[in-house]
């Protein structure tokens, strides 16, 4: 018999964007489903363009007014404002995803950050791309350039390179991994490149798999359309478990977030007053990476994935899990963020055999050597 709790979720995009914002909205719903005393408030599309009249402060004020005790501000673009708001409402718990203020130590006591090891699903995404590709050309649809987007692109590349060299040696050619940045997290017509057209170009220029690194689903749309027209094209959407739905037959898989469990922890701990500030890089469930109750990110294989590659993907996933879970599952263990690794300009990131420290990954200064595309 615990007392009621109201929590707010502030989304930067529409709740049905099939990507980033939707995954947070669903996390909110997950809490409601697993804690009968919890009720969600939410506010979608809080950005200067869609809602010029409202700031985070306005929205939070309204939410607190309606009784919210925990508020999730679900975009790095809320990172700064969250601090200010948190000072104004010290009695409320704020979680900013995916900020790092807490890490830097310049966040008020009632602010927490968390992020998840999306890098791992990305490795899997990259691997399946390499396994499925017949042309050896993979396109990566990048958002804007910052450390987060760089490390996600780099992870995809590492996965792809590994599986290409390990399982596709017979192709007898080098993998071509190209990154095109559109300029923002989603398509702002006229201000950014049009992801639809960028994806089309990848395919026009011989790529047969496009990995999406943006909040929205243009890549899978285009792949699906081309597939329906008879060409062999795949995409790997990003962010939301439902990412494949727009074109299942062309979907190799989706690297998605599953914030629900983390949200639930926060709400519960706030409810019983046990919440404490922290900066968490949330773990995945290595035994069952797609477990909705235990794994905070996952890689869901798409119906479009050719089954012949499944075996290789399993093997790679197993080896990865073996390393990450730090317990022996009787398979060789692989960790791809491991030397020898060079940055795009050739400077060494990690020497032979040594692993790249998490924080160096977090603050990736450049793309990696071997990737085609701008680093800034």
């Amino acid at each position, binding site marked *: 018999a615990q007392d009621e709790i109201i929590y707010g979720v502030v989304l930067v*995009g*529409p709740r*049905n*964007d*099939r990507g980033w914002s939707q995954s947070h909205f669903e996390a909110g719903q997950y809490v409601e489903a697993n804690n009968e005393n919890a009720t969600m408030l939410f506010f979608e*599309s809080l950005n200067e*363009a*869609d809602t010029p009249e409202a700031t985070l402060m306005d929205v939070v004020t309204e939410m607190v007014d309606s009784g919210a005790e925990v508020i999730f501000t679900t975009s790095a673009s809320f990172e700064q404002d969250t601090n200010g708001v948190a000072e104004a409402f010290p009695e409320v718990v704020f979680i900013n995803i995916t900020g790092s203020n807490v890490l830097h130590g310049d966040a008020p006591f009632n602010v927490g950050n968390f992020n998840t090891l999306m890098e791992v699903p990305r490795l899997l995404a990259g691997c399946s791309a390499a396994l499925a590709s017949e042309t050896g050309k993979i396109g990566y649809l990048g958002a804007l350039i910052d450390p987060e987007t760089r490390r996600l692109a780099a992870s995809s590349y590492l996965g792809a390179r590994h599986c290409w060299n390990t399982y596709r040696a017979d192709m007898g050619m080098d993998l071509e991994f*190209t990154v*095109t*940045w559109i*300029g923002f997290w989603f*398509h*702002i*017509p*006229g*201000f*950014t*490149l*049009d992801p*639809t*057209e*960028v994806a*089309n*170009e990848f*395919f*026009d*220029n*011989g790529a047969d798999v496009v990995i999406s690194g943006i909040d*929205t*689903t*243009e890549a899978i*749309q285009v792949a*699906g*359309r081309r597939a*329906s*027209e*008879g060409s062999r094209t795949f995409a790997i959407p990003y962010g939301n478990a439902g990412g494949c*739905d*727009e*074109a299942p037959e062309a979907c190799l898989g989706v690297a998605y977030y599953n914030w629900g469990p983390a949200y639930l922890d926060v709400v519960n701990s706030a409810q019983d007053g046990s919440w404490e500030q922290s900066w968490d890089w949330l773990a995945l469930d290595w035994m069952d990476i797609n477990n909705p109750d235990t794994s905070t990110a996952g890689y869901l294989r798409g119906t479009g994935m050719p089954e012949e590659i499944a075996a290789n993907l399993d093997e790679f996933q197993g080896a990865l899990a073996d390393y990450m879970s730090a317990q022996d599952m009787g398979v060789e263990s692989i960790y791809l963020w491991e030397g020898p690794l060079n940055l795009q300009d050739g400077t060494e990131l990690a020497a032979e055999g040594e692993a790249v420290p998490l924080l160096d990954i977090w603050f990736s200064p450049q793309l990696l050597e071997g990737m*085609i*595309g*701008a680093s800034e």
Partner: protein
Amino acid sequence: MNVEFLNTLASVVANATPLVIASIGETITERAGVINLSLNGSLIVTAMAGFIAARVISFGVDVDAIDMIASAEAGLIGGVVVAMLVGALVALIIALSSIELRLDQVTVGFILTLLMADLAQFLGQEYTRIPGPVVPKWPVPLLQDLPLLGPVFFQQNVLVYLSYVLVIGLWFWLFRTRPGMAHRAIGERPEAAYARGTNVNRLRYVYVVLGGALVGVAGGAYSLHFKPGLSNPPAMQGDGWIALAIVIFGGWHPFRVVVGAWLFAALRAVSSDIQKNGLAVLGQTIEFNFVLLNGLPWLMLIVTLLLVSSGAIERLLLLLPGPVQRRMRSVLRSDPPRAIGTTFEVD
């Protein structure tokens, strides 16, 4: 010529298609002496209407449904028809307010631009980011095998072919047929048209609505193929303005209009290609900041309008030999229809 390049050209032609259809529609409207400034909004709202119609027909009202209740063709046809009707409706508002109420066409058009965009987002929210029927590719028998031309122009879908037909058709209509003369006349000198027994305002209704309907087709073309589905912000945001500019750049002549549209599409392709490979000038490649590159099409828009306003295009006429001049005159003439934006009244 390598296949990648042909693919890129084909994509340019494809990506330009909605622009072509929309600008042809606007050309029809403006040739009749009326400006439909609402293009940007019309495209967005018709894309919305077209997609929802197609989706509902093929999948039913349930937005989570994944299996079809009717054929994709049925949905597509229904979608395009609905898009046309909505486009025609918006245009009708402009025609009425201009012809009956003598309101400033630019004012009404602008209000509609904003209103339609918001309306589209409001009514379309449930249907954003869900799959719907997509206009399939349909290579033209025989023609598709032509060297070079085939892969670029004839391995596309019906919408693209429609754009070809529209361009050539409108040219023939305007410059070769008698009703086409009346069409031009009501935009150039309505009094003269009236004196020759043409019912100026009735024809203006017809052409404004027709033009609007084509804008609708363009909107549908976006959501049913070129930028499939609905998204927020709408993926064709801004293209309406470019289409309007293309009409001017095109000197209200279908041939120049289509060139303009292809030019813009090509430019977009180029600006993301430069991001990957840099710009090769005289051997050495210049790197560009990839964000700033996104400004290129807009610079281009200004430049093209400069070309027109400075009379540069028309000066080409003077360089040509006499007989060719006569042929090219209608193409290179950049004057807007004389009576554009004005109302016409008898007594």
